[in-house]
């Protein structure tokens, strides 16, 4: 199914050249939620580009991830306002709680972590967002609790 999605995207970029790489990567991520190895290989065949080059371009931008997102996708804002309000320590706390780095997904596929530049909620800084739900004025202690609540009660409480 996944391969079919990629094929469909590539077919909509017939006779594309290397300048189509970023739009294709964006569409693949939109469709799969991440850039898979298989996708890189297929895009490479389509555009006649080596896999290393595609990976190089994709890792240049923060927007691309290479692991599927977890059941709960945690976005930590590292924009200017959040930074001033201590988001570095918030991110550190989330990383410690999940034991993953930005761009990664936990092994049980429950959580994935992403750092974003600004969510346009500077009044609530520092802010994090889990599956579209915003948590305002968080502290390291507070985010640890939030993560914990998702972990323990997750399925019953938060999946609607």
């Amino acid at each position, binding site marked *: 199914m996944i391969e079919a999605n990629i094929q469909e995207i590539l077919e909509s970029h017939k006779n594309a050249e290397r300048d189509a790489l970023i739009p294709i990567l964006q569409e693949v991520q939109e469709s799969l939620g991440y850039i898979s190895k298989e996708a890189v290989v297929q895009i490479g065949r389509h555009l006649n580009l080596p896999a*290393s080059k595609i990976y190089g371009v994709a890792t*240049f931008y923060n927007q691309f991830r290479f692991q599927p997102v977890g059941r709960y996708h945690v976005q930590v804002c590292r924009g200017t306002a959040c930074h001033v309000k201590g988001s570095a320590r918030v991110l550190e706390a989330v990383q410690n709680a999940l034991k993953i780095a930005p761009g990664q997904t936990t092994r049980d596929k429950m959580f994935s972590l992403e750092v974003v530049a600004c969510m346009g909620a500077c009044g609530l800084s520092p802010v994090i967002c889990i599956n579209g739900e915003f948590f305002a004025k968080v502290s390291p202690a507070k985010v640890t609790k939030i993560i914990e609540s998702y972990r323990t009660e997750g399925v019953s409480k938060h999946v609607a």
Partner: protein
Amino acid sequence: MIQIEVNGKTLTAKEDDTILSAVRKAGLNIPTLCHMDGYPPSGACRICVVEVDGVNGLVPSCSAGVRDGMKIKTHSQRALEARKTIVELLLANHPDDCNYCVRNENCELQSLAAELGVRRRTYTGRREMLRIDASSPSIVRDPNKCILCGRCVRVCEEVQGVAAIDFTKRGSRAQIGTAFDQGLNLSCCINCGQCIVVCPTGALAENSHVKLVLDALSNPEKFCVVQHAPAISVTIAEELGCTAGSDYDGKMVAALRRIGFDRVFDTSFSADLTIMEEGSELIHRVKNNGVLPMITSCSPGWIKYLETFYPEFRPNVSTCKSPQQMLGAIIKSYFAEREGLKPDKVFSVSIMPCTAKKFEANRPEMAQDGIPDVDAVLTTRELGQILRMFGVDMNTIEPEAADTPFGTRSTAGKIFGASGGVMEAAVRSAYFLLTGTELSNLNLEAVRGLEGVKEAQVEINGLKVGVAVASGLGNAAKLLEQVKAGRKDLHFIEIMTCPGGCISGGGQPISADTNAVKARMKALYQIDASENLRTSHTNPDIKRIYEEFLGEPLGEKSHHLLHTHYAQREVVR
């Protein structure tokens, strides 16, 4: 021609010169870290900046073209200060372990820092312990020592057409990496080691077998034998600081005995053996409507490239093992038997101009009953290290001859070290095998030299045999695409992984310029011109091994010991 003024002196330059090329032609050097002769400029390192009258900022001389009347100061105080600052910034997050570095005293960054008078740490940058990639049997990558000049990326993509590595991530986190940061062993890297030869620092090096060899040499249980490839004798001198192109064949044999090898053999002997097998295979294919064009199989980088990028050409590639593996197999069978030695008591070392040979020796099919045919592979650089370690004085040592039963080689086997050499050697013997007479002129000038693709037509018994020679896999790919598109006039193709052949292999002395490579090539053809035994089929030791052991070319024993098969590789590429 136009005139420019450099440091107050008038020079003439060509319109298409860059400031760097014009200045260097006039015998003055501007240092560079990212520039490579023969490539378009990349302008990444900014070490080569110069002052140009009327231009506000400093100008990168590698990418700025000359203009008539241009006034340039190459070593003004401002330019020197800028260079020094750049080096200081590069050193800000560079490991301080020069003493322990494989490139100590042979490092462009280290020399530049010394030349520019960097005597203390001016800047201290964030240092991360990045993971060293030692997954490859051939190449070790230490990203901590990488200065991101991009030379390895360019040679991998632009010369070899492999593109196993590229720049990944961004800004201060940028590094050179494979797709998905996998180990080189899982990437489409073909182990050629051209990246090592162009690397200005110790970020790339061969996977060293020096300790393996030293352990075996000091182990009384082991009978240590060594073979040296055709290209080693004309490059080891350079590694030891002598003039490029000096032939140290006999001296090297003597030196290898001094450091403790029980027997010293010349891989050129098994190159002769390769010619007997490969020449017979070609004739068999031509006579029996076999798959043509036949392609050579000596170069292990090419073989992995074939398996990864052009698996459809596998039936075209000769089934012959490379000379290294042929001699390895013969040493642990014929030779061991002759000497009354058990194969597992023999420790077989080969000295190769090549890092891919380490991978080749490691291939599972290159073993008999679980005992590898070749136990360790040293590059020319590693041999240099061992010779220095043992204090061998190459100036005073007297030349000695290689050991029986493989003591004699023809010069046809010797020229394997240069691109076109295998073809020339094969044509000499194929002509004889088909006609029963020798070629009136043994020289096949059309396939000599450093061009990427060389072609010739040879008439044998009325048949016009089309031959082509490619070196550098980007050039090989062009030829393969022509064959794919239906080109029919070629019968035999020689492919060497490295541009110019083994004389500029990935195991050769670091940063050789084109003139050094030319000198090495000249030395090989000089040997060919000055000796009498110039064809593989007239080598008496080759005749003996067929009489005593192998029977005939392509026979049962040959099939078992000297021939192999190829796989298709599924890697991310």
